Each structure stands twice: as structure tokens, then as C-alpha cells.
């Protein structure tokens, strides 16, 4: 596939992520704009950091909600809050919405609802992770072919 084609593919793919609500277009583009020749891998680095942090948060959330002796909702809430913050920073929209829902369930102290929400959260996270990884692979291909990542604008 030639570069131009790959680039178009990249653009379409990114747009689709925005359309599906998986990514917050504005936020994600902001990150893109922070990437320049001095920081060519910025988005990739940030998102990788996000993935790492998320794994930890999900693990902690699972652990906290698994406490048979009683769930510490404050702890769960704090974790959800943090996850919400980081996911919204990278534009993982559905993930952060899920975190918001989880926080609400924490307020209600509804363990079952929290667990279900956590399940959904994990799914959303996996979904966005896969999509982003696909996007990054595409980017690498473009770069390998000598092309550059197109600068997108939110015009759609």
C-alpha cells in the first residue's frame, strides 16, 4: 500500500473512532497537536502510559470490589475518579463515561451495579485499547514508508 493510501486509511480510521464515540475528537486532536518533530512519538507515549496506568487501576478496582468483607466504596470512588481523569485526558470517551457511571454506583453503595459497571468498563477499555493499537500500527507503517502522520482537523 502506498503512503498516500495508508494516510487516508489512517484518517478514515481515526474519524471512525470519533464517530463511534470511542474517542473524544477534540481531546485526541489536541494530543496530536502536541506532537511535532521534537516529540514525534508523543501520542504513542502518552497512550502507552495510559494503558499502563489503566491496567493498574483496573486491577485495583477489581480487587476493591471483590472484598467479601465489605467494599470500600470510597476507595473505589477514588480509583474511578482517577481513571476518569486519565481516560478523559487521552480522549477515551466511553471509558471515562463508564467511570462516571461507576462513581455514581459507588455513591449508592450498590456493589452489584458497581461490579457490572466494572465489567463494562473493562470491555470499553479493551475496545479502545485495540483500536488505538491498530491506529498506532498504521502510523508505524506510514512512517516506515517514509510518510508522515496527517494532521487532522475536526471538520466533520
Amino acid at each position: 500500500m502506498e503512503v498516500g493510501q495508508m494516510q487516508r486509511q489512517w484518517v478514515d480510521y481515526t474519524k471512525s473512532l470519533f464517530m463511534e464515540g470511542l474517542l473524544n475528537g477534540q481531546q485526541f486532536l489536541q494530543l496530536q497537536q502536541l506532537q511535532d518533530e521534537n516529540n514525534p512519538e508523543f501520542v504513542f507515549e502518552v497512550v502507552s502510559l495510559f494503558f499502563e496506568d489503566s491496567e493498574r487501576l483496573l486491577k485495583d478496582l477489581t480487587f476493591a470490589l471483590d472484598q467479601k468483607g465489605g467494599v470500600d466504596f470510597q476507595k473505589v470512588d477514588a480509583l474511578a475518579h482517577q481513571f476518569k481523569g486519565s481516560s478523559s485526558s487521552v480522549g477515551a470517551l466511553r471509558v471515562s463515561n463508564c467511570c462516571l457511571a461507576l462513581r455514581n454506583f459507588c455513591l449508592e453503595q450498590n456493589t452489584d451495579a458497581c461490579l457490572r459497571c466494572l465489567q463494562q468498563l473493562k470491555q470499553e477499555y479493551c475496545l479502545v485499547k485495540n483500536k488505538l493499537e491498530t491506529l498506532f500500527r498504521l502510523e508505524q507503517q506510514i512512517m516506515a514508508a517514509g510518510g508522515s502522520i496527517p494532521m487532522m482537523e475536526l471538520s466533520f
Partner: protein
Amino acid sequence: MNLNNVKGSTMLSSPGDGAVSDQFPAGLRVLVVDDDPTCLMILERMLRTCLYQVTKCNRAEIALTLLRENKNGFDIVISDVHMPDMDGFKLLEHIGLEMDLPVIMMSADDSKNVVMKGVTHGACDYLIKPVRIDSLKNIWQHVVRKKKNEWRDTEQSGSADEGDRQQKPSDDADYSSSANEGSWRNSKKRRDEDEDADDRDDTSTLKKPRVVWSVELHQQFVAAVDQLGINKAVPKKILELMNVPGLTRENVASHLQKYRLYLRRLSGVSQHPNNSFLSQQDGNFGSISSINDLQTLAAAGQLPAQSLATLQAAGLGRSTAKAGVPMPLMDQRNLFSFENPRIRFGEVQQQQQHMSDGKSINLLHGIPTNMEAKQLANLHQSTQSIGSLNMRVNASTTLTNPLLMQMAQSQPRGQVLSENTGHHVPGLSSALGQPNRNGISNGPLGRNGMAYNLVPKNSSTLSYPMNQTPEMPVSSFPLGSTPVISSITTKGSFQEEVTSGIKGDNGFVPSYDIFNELHHHKSHDWEITSPGLTYTASQPANPSHGNINVSSSVLVQQGFYPTQQTGRSRDSPLMAKSIFSLGEGLEQGILQNADQHLNTLVDNSGRVKVERIPDESSQTNLFPEQYGQEDLLSSLLKQQEGMGPTESEYDFDGYSLDNIPV
């Protein structure tokens, strides 16, 4: 520092001349603190894109260390609100007080109360995550603005602040920041591991005459303020008292301003010194060290705790005795939950107004309670948000604040915590269970009675049956102390309950030193006297301990009077009682306890010692003197009188507490 040097230099350091490097704001030195690595990375990148010089750290403690070690190494700080090791607001306060740098808060939480907290804690801006780069582009304005203000305040001596050049006195009004500083300082100390010292008394740091208010310096400041009295604490005199070489009047003035804000925040109401409250209550709080004696307190060196307590009490209407302040907090909650049918809000309000006129609410001035808003929240949820005293104090204050607010609304006391209380009010009510409907809770009583820990030491329940005439016959208060005697001296047992209850609820109690003291004074008989009760001289003299203290604290919390019970609540049973009277409606249990207290009081004094309280027991002196609300006090007294001894019925008419079995 030269302004011309943009890169990395203190661009804005040059005081006096607004000249900024032409490259400004490039090179602005930003410290960003966030425990979320993703956000931190993004922020750093964004800030770098804005050409700022960025230092990032993920721990508040590290940030503080960095700031302390590089006094002038940063121009602005951006911090997240929710961090594991330290609350963002606490960090904010630290920075504001120690380094006086502009701080921007940020959070994914955009709820109004959190943003409000940012405002009240002095943040110069609040960003909602995810942060956009556009929001960051203009943060330099905060730096410039602050410097401009500083220049105005401090003398423009290029170097330090020596000489008392009288620059335009930016300190307005020297309203004395209540002596809560001590407590505030205390809590600050507690929190902060005492950093230290940078004792830069002379601070004159260079161009920017920025004084570094080290712990010691601040303590000196507080002591001076206390000594002078809140009302009289003018920068000039404070400066003289402090006698610190190199310190200028302007430095003191701006610090005083901050301190006042702080106190205001704590008490939720800006008000005059607690004294007013104290005076009112003095009658009632026998043991409550009147906040008036903040100075005394200060002298005692326990100011911090006491002030805090007092303030809180005042704010909450509880007399926070030096004793465990915690009680007050708790009591407050309990108080509120008590049904104060008698106390009519309106009436109380009036009374409160008297009280609040002066003092109420801001008793907590010094108390670094960031928690004003939090407090309410805490109340509601028994959150231990009060990690530090401040919190607790605030909590109480907040409780009272709303109440106070109500009272104070009519009175423009200085800075009415309208905002704080306003918000809190609703919270308070709810938190309290029911904000003394009698008006105590809302009105002056609210402050007093509400928060007052109904520490029924002895008897578990104070029966408020005593005349719980809802009306607060302030005028009838023989004691003339502020009816705000919110400190409900519940007899021992009650106290425990209260405390525990309160503790659980708002966690107020726990850390607050003052409150702790109150705890000790569990035996304070906090009587929750319904306002209608006539305080018959029998003050719930809790011989056991200064429950009055508790009351004091409670009172203080209410903002009525920062009476700090010096643990000798016994003496000022009156005070306590009066408080209780106010709280008529406050739990029955409490009344009962109060009865006992009353008995004791009666025994002790056999008279409404409202007046005497101030003088005799230092504890309760706080209020009586300060508060000129005799009415309130009298009403309180009335209530107390009404309190029947031991039984739930307090016959508050006229002191008939003699027979109250202690």
C-alpha cells in the same frame, strides 16, 4: 532578579516595576503536581508548548519540598485536587501561606462545591480536566496579577523589606484576624511537618519583597494578633509586637489579610472577633473559656488549638473549650439532630444577630479550616475530611456558618460567610439533622446550640423538655451571655454518644486538637438548653470537666464565642448551660445531661454566672465578653433554667436547677 532575563529567570521577580521580559510569558516557571502520570505527561507537554519552564512531580510532599528549597524557583503552581498523599487544597494552603505563589487547581471533578472550595482556599483558578492547552496559555496572567498586588502591598524597596516604608496600606480594615491563628497554625503545623523553618523573618528576598512566613514567624504573628485582639490587630501594631527585624508593615498587612481570609474560611463567616460571642455566652459557659480571651489563649500558647477550637466553637456555636474540640464538632452534629422544637429560628436568629454581630462566625478565623465547604459535606457524611484540625474546625464552622449566616445575614459582619455559609447552610441543616430549627441552629443558637456538643456526660439524654420555648428569650437571659451557648453540655454519657456520633459523622472530632480537648472533657455537661429555658443560674456545672469546654468549643464553633474551655468547665457551667438552653430542642437526652450539669452549675454558682463566667472561669469568658448579646444569653439562661435537673424536664424557669442531681 532581573526582569530582562527571561529564560528561566524570575521574570516577574522584579518588584515594583512591572517590566517584564519581552519574552514573557515564555520561560514562566511552572510546577505541576498530579498523581496521574498520564495527565502529568500531557500537561508537561502542553506547558512546554506554551514555552513555559516545567517541573513536574507526582507527589504533593515532593512539590512542597521543591518549593521550599527553591524559594523563588517557581512562578506558579498547578495542582490536582485529588491526590493520595495530600489533599490538593491543603497543598494550596501551604503554598499560599508559605510561598505565596499563585496556585491553579484542576480536577476531573467539576462539581460546584469543589470549585468553590478552590475559590475559598485561595486558588487563583480552577481547571476542569481534561485540560486544554488553551487554558494553559494564559496562566501567566495570574502570576502578573499576583505580583502586582504584592508590589502594592509590600514596600518597594528593592531588597527586602526593611524599613517600614508605609506603602499604601493595603491592609484594609484591620479586622483582627481572630486569634485562631494559633489553631490554624497548629493544624498547619500538624499537617506539615513543620517545615520549617525557613525562618526568614526578614525575608526580604530580593527584589520581590516576599516574606517567607515560616512557622515561627507565623506564630509570632498570631501571638501578636491575639495579644492585640482581633479587633485591634493592625499591621503596625502587630509589627511592633512581633519585633522582627526586616519585616515590614506591608508584609504584615498582606499576611494579615491572608490570615483573615483563612479565618473567614474557617468560620465560614467573616466576622468580628469571637469576642462578641464570647461575651454573650460568658454567662453560660462557665467553663468555656471565652473566646474573647483569645488573647489569653494565645498567651496560653495553645492558641492554635484553642483558637481553632474556639473558632470552631464559635462558628458552630459551640464553645470549644480548649478541651477536646472534637466534641464540639460532634456535638454540633448531634445538636443539630436534636429537635429543637422550642427554639424558634426566628427568635434565635434575632438573638443570633446580636451575637453574630460581632463575632460569631468568624471565630474560627484563625482556623485553617479549609473545610468550610467540606465541613458541611463532612457533616453530612461524616467524612473525616477533617484530616487536619482545620478540617474539623471548619467543619464546625461550617456548621455554624450556615447558622451564623443566617444570623449574620442581617448583619453584615465583615465578611459574612455568605458564600460559605450559604452553601453550608443547607448542608448544615442536613448535617445537623436538623438545624436547630429552633432557630438555634439557624440562628444564633444554631450556632451555639447546634454545634455544641451535646455532651451529656452524665446523663445520657438531656431532656430538653425544659422550657423549650422555642423562642429565645434572649433578653431574658439572665446571663446575658449569648444564647448561643451552643455547647451543650451533655452529661457524660451523652457526650460520648455525641462524640461518637459526631465523630462518625463528620469526623470533626478526630483531629481537631481543640476538639480533642473537648473530648477529654467529655464530662462537660453540655446542656442543650432550649432557648426558652431560662437559665437559672444553674449552669451545668460539670464538675467532671469542663464540659463547658465542650460547650465552648461548641460555641466557638458556632462562631458565637470562641470560648475555650480550659478544661475547667466546671466553673462556667453557666456558659454551658446557656448554651444548652439555646439548644432547647436539642436532644432530650442532652437536656437531661444538661440538667445534671445545670445542677452542677447551680451548685457551683447557684446563679447564672453568665456575667461571671467570663471572669471567673477563663473558660467561659470567651463569650460573655465578647458577645454583647445579652439577649441571647438571657434566653439561653432561661432555657437552662428551665431545664429540669436530671430528668428530662428542665424547668428552666428561673434557676431551679438546684436540685439537679449532678
